[in-house]
């Protein structure tokens, strides 16, 4: 089985190399012969998918067949591992995840190469660039991190098993989502670099890559938040984001990718920021590769990172090649990227995009700086330092608040120039709503002068309200205009409005989701926790809740043995639920794992919903008594709801616009309207 996989990887490398070299030759020496050569290169690229798919299939089959002669399967699986996790073995370790990366890249490449008729020449350039990236990953797989390496000596009877932290249902979908995001940015990168190399006229390449970029961004968003939810549900420390280097690695391309999604509109609509956009997508792709390097090279310590290995040098080399290629073609063809228009006013949609991009890039720089500072410190001072949450929070929270302000104001500013009158008209009600929420927070006991975190919570609450209300007001005002002209009621009119410009109104829904996520995060300063050794009948109070330990129980299955605490939860003397925090001992890996239980108080609190979060930490070795840790985390469920709204918004933005209605009679326009002023 391992031989089949190994040959498949070698064949894939040969096909990718042909796709790259043949495609490049066809582009460099155009002619009748080269057209045929280009076509064979395209087909070779398509075949890469089939061969890499075969290699991945072999690895998964080996996991299901418990083929421990393959070292990778021995290290990441065992006989009693449940089937979904055996499937997830593919991306559970270094070599498998690189193979998975290669598989996803070949899948994206397959779609791109099948759709080449959209613009044959631009697609040929993009195909060559993708083939070059694929060659790098296949070189790694064949010569540095071989997933089909065989075990030496006698065959072990069972494998080491999958890391217990990864034995959680979300881990079956979190890495694929994240990788779809990481790998997906190769496509806009390939189009951008291809467009720069061939001095592509106009902005059509942006239209072509728009959906690719949005889909990729959506996958990365899903991946990041699934990771956050996994950390919250599995790691048992009551939080969802710890500014761990691996979390940072996924967040950095998201930040620059988000900046790109905004600034690219300026290029589409006004022919501005061409150089900036080019470098933004180069940076996003570079950061995706850099993130992979961070998690695999061992340069930073992280609870998530793969084991240290020598492949870090490969990634450094590849990053340098990417930088050199991008820099060379930028210098040679930079005159092609001249802006067509200039900024006309500081109070305009364009300037809001400029500031939005500045903040996103600064945010990304801060995260990168914090991630790399320990290395820099070791280099300069000879000693490592830790850069933990206080550093990131101090810098990034103010930046996030400014970004929220721009999220609220930017969409309501007109392109070119916005009048003061229009500003007043658009912002009055959302502004008053935000003030009302601020006053309500003060009335309910938020004291911003006692602690900076309360001040941030107050500001975040007001700004998130401002964002939500501006989005609602945009839908309502636009819907009313359509309702007036068509005679429809407001809701169908708003639907009609969205259908006329899906990207704009889908984007607003994403902004609305962001506001909800922020509302979920702002509960952090109000978190409470309690820890107690709890025997039968012992009680612990946390906020309005009383937790009573009813009993403990045990169970055993082939994969793990576990213990549950049975905790009754009371509020105001009335029992509201029973929770079962768990502790498992995985037999194959001989590792212990806590499995927290979470109860969202939706029925009791609805809007001010809290998570009651219980962890069975284990038995105190000194007293022999079980320890239960309880957290009460206000508003957290809103984060996951907000993410769903963001994803829904992205999906709605992917739909095609309704065909424009042709007006044959001149319209009577009584006064200038700002509704539908553009994206």
């Amino acid at each position, binding site marked *: 089985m391992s031989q089949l996989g190994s040959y498949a990887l070698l064949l894939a490398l040969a096909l990718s190399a042909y796709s790259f070299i043949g495609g490049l030759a066809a582009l460099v020496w155009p002619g009748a012969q080269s057209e045929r050569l280009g076509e064979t290169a395209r087909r070779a690229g398509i075949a890469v998918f089939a061969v890499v798919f075969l290699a991945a299939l072999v690895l998964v089959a080996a996991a299901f067949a418990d083929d421990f002669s393959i070292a990778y399967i021995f290290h990441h699986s065992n006989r009693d591992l449940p089937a979904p996790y055996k499937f997830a073995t593919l991306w559970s370790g270094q070599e498998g995840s690189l193979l998975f990366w290669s598989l996803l890249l070949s899948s994206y490449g397959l779609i791109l190469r099948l759709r080449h008729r959209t613009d044959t020449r631009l697609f040929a350039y993009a195909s060559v660039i993708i083939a070059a990236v694929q060659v790098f990953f296949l070189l790694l797989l064949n010569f540095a991190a071989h997933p089909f390496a065989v075990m030496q000596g006698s065959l072990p009877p069972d494998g080491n098993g999958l890391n217990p932290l990864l034995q959680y249902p979300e881990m079956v979908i979190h890495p694929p989502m994240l990788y779809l995001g990481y790998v997906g940015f190769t496509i806009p990168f390939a189009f951008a670099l291809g467009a720069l190399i061939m001095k592509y006229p106009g902005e059509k390449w942006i239209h072509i890559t728009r959906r690719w970029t949005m889909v990729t961004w959506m996958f990365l968003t899903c991946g990041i938040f699934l990771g956050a939810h996994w950390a919250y549900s599995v790691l048992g420390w009551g939080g969802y984001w710890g500014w761990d280097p691996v979390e940072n690695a996924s967040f950095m391309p998201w930040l620059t990718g988000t900046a790109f999604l905004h600034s690219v509109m300026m290029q589409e609509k006004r022919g501005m920021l061409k150089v900036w956009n080019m470098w933004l997508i180069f940076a996003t792709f570079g950061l995706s590769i850099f993130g992979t390097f961070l998690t695999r090279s061992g340069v930073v310590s992280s609870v998530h990172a793969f084991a240290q290995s020598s492949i870090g040098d490969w990634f450094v080399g590849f990053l340098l090649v990417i930088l050199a290629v991008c820099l060379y073609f930028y210098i040679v063809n930079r005159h092609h990227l001249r802006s067509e228009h*200039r900024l006309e006013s500081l109070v305009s949609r364009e300037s809001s995009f400029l*500031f939005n991009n500045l903040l996103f890039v600064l945010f990304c*720089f801060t995260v990168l700086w914090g991630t790399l*500072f320990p290395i820099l410190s070791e280099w300069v001072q000879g000693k490592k*330092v*830790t850069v933990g949450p206080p550093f990131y929070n101090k810098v990034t929270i103010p930046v996030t608040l400014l970004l929220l302000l721009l999220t609220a104001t930017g969409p309501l500013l007109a392109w070119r120039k916005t009048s003061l009158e229009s500003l007043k008209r658009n912002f009055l009600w959302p502004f008053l709503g935000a003030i009302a929420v601020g006053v309500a927070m003060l009335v309910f006991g938020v004291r911003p002068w006692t602690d900076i975190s309360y001040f941030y919570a107050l500001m975040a609450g007001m700004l998130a309200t401002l964002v939500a209300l501006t989005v609602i007001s945009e839908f309502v005002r636009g819907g009313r205009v359509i309702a007036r002209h068509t005679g429809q009621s407001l809701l169908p009119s708003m639907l009609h409005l969205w259908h006329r410009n899906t990207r704009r109104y889908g984007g607003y829904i994403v902004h609305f989701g962001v506001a909800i996520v922020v509302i979920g995060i702002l509960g952090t300063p109000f978190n409470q926790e309690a820890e107690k050794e709890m025997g039968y009948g012992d009680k612990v109070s946390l906020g309005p809740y009383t937790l009573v330990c009813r009993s403990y129980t045990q169970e055993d299955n082939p994969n793990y043995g576990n213990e549950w605490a049975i905790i009754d939860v009371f509020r105001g003397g009335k029992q509201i639920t029973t929770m079962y925090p768990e502790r498992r001992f995985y037999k194959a890996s001989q590792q212990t794992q806590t499995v927290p239980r979470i109860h969202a108080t939706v029925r009791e609190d609805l809007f001010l919903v809290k998570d009651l979060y219980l962890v069975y930490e284990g038995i105190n070795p000194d007293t022999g008594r079980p320890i239960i840790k309880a957290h009460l985390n206000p508003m957290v469920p809103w984060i996951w709801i907000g993410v769903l709204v963001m994803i829904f918004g992205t999906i709605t933005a992917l739909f095609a616009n309704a065909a424009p209605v042709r007006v044959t009679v001149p319209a009577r326009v009584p006064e200038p309207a700002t509704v539908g002023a*553009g994206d």
Partner: protein
Amino acid sequence: MRGFSQNRWSLAGLVVLTALLAMGAGDDARFNNLGHKLMCVCGCNQVLLECNHVGCAYSDRMRGELAAGVERSESDDLTLQTFVQKYGPTVLIAPTSTGFNRVAWVVPYFALALGVISLVVLARNWSHRTQPVSNSASQTPDMLDAYRRQARKETEL
């Protein structure tokens, strides 16, 4: 007189009890505050007070040392310094604001200032260079068509 004395003793007792409670509360707050400035060194990458590994070889011992330091009424700096001496500089959750470590804190703000200044200068230069709108009477039909196309592109409606 005797009753007065009893009252005084009661009052004094109350004051002492309140002070002790307040001291205890203060110690708890200090313990909590300092515990969130330290990392567990077991490799879990968690804040010391958030490391939830029962039987962790480090966190229980470190929490004990922190509680002892707080009880001895050492200053915060001295307590943290004791941990740095024992476990190395990585035990602190964030870089200090001294020496080279200050660079960690300064650079993002420097980058922000640089970015804002560059952006404002760029925006002002751009807006000053904007061409005045020409008289509509001098526009040819072709130019007007181009403007219409541009307007449609910008508004998408």
